[in-house]
């Protein structure tokens, strides 16, 4: 179904899927699979807890930074990198529940030096930029070139590394194609194109590394997304791997949400989500899509 209504629903599913994956994975972040098994059996319920001691349904920096990107676009009615940086700064000052060290450095350098692009750094291959890229895909609907440009621009606020850049573009592309109703093969093509250029991302055989290194995160996401058949199956598998579970969950949720659509997100997870977050993301999805080239007939 490619009607505009269906597109808005899949765009909404992408952002809500991100939040659900974040909240679900936050419980098992930094845990090992055997410890998750011992403590929860199979973790498949939004229960909060985790190292951040969260109330159930609470999201973390993965969703909150995505919200920042969305807010900036909507506030300006278009793309304004400084506005995105400003939203990140406002968020950081508000004592968020967690902030990655690379993200914190980049935002601090924006606050103190008005820096909008961090210098290249071999240690910047973390997943902090890819985890927040989904709103870009909604705003750039219909224009994969614009999508690729903005995906990297927002990344460079905090991360400057070829693998982070490529990951942002690929995740955004997969979300984009999912929302447009492209069959799974189209999403797989994007993942394989990335793995072709960068063997670090090969995902056929999964070796169980769920770290914050962006290649590990995306290999986990790709492997679990392409080897499962439903949104729920994909997310449950991914968050039970532990490691950087909230971020892997958030990225998988964004992609799987875009592909499987709203109806595929288990209702019990949606209602467990922080209501304010659920409301804002639902609104934002609608508005972002309306600003996109596809909807503006550009």
């Amino acid at each position, binding site marked *: 179904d490619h009607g505009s209504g269906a597109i808005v629903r899949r765009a909404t599913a992408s952002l809500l899927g991100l939040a659900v994956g974040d909240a679900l994975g936050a419980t098992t972040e930094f845990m090992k699979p055997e410890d998750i098994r011992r403590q929860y059996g199979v973790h498949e319920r939004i229960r909060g807890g985790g190292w951040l001691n969260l109330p159930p349904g609470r999201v973390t920096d993965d969703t909150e930074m995505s919200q920042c990107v969305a807010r900036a676009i909507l506030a300006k009615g278009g793309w304004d990198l400084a506005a995105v940086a400003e939203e990140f700064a406002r968020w950081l000052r508000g004592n968020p529940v967690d902030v990655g060290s690379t993200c914190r*450095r980049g935002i601090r350098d924006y606050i103190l030096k008005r820096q909008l692009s961090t210098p290249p750094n071999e240690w910047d291959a973390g997943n902090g930029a890819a985890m927040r890229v989904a709103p870009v895909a909604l705003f750039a609907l219909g224009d994969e070139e614009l999508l690729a440009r903005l995906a990297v621009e927002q990344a460079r606020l905090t991360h400057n590394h070829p693998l982070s850049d490529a990951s942002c573009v690929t995740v955004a592309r997969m979300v984009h194609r999912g929302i447009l109703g492209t069959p799974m093969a189209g999403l797989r093509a994007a993942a394989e194109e990335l793995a072709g250029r960068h063997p670090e991302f090969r995902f056929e055989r999964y070796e169980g590394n769920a770290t914050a290194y962006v290649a590990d995160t995306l290999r986990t996401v790709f492997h679990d997304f392409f080897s499962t058949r439903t949104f729920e199956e994909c997310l449950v598998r991914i968050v039970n791997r532990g490691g950087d579970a909230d971020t892997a969950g958030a990225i998988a949720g964004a992609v799987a949400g875009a592909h499987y659509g709203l109806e595929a997100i288990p209702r019990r997870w949606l209602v467990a989500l922080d209501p304010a977050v659920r409301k804002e993301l639902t609104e934002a999805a609608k508005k972002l899509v309306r600003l996109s080239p596809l909807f503006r007939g550009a």
Partner: protein
Amino acid sequence: MKKIEAIIKPFKLDEVKESLNDIGVQGMTVSEVKGFGRQKGHTELYRGAEYVVDFLPKIKLEIIVPDDLVAQVVEVVEKSARTGRIGDGKIFVTNVEEVVRIRTGERGHDAI
């Protein structure tokens, strides 16, 4: 990289932490110290006799920052720690040759 060490009045800690938070600086190490200087200690009653306790409790902050942020961080600490009365404290800047984040092994700027 530099180490910014600040000796401040204890009640100023929260204000200094918040001002640093506003500029995105969160990491620091804090210790309780005793200060001797122009500010006079207080008198204490002990077993019926009055004693001049000549030191004053202070808080010491240690914050490692990249060179290009030193001036701004010093200024933020200075402003937020100041009351204008004797004993406000001091800030020292020393050079740090290497920093390591123990968890990840990251070195240099990536460690702060």
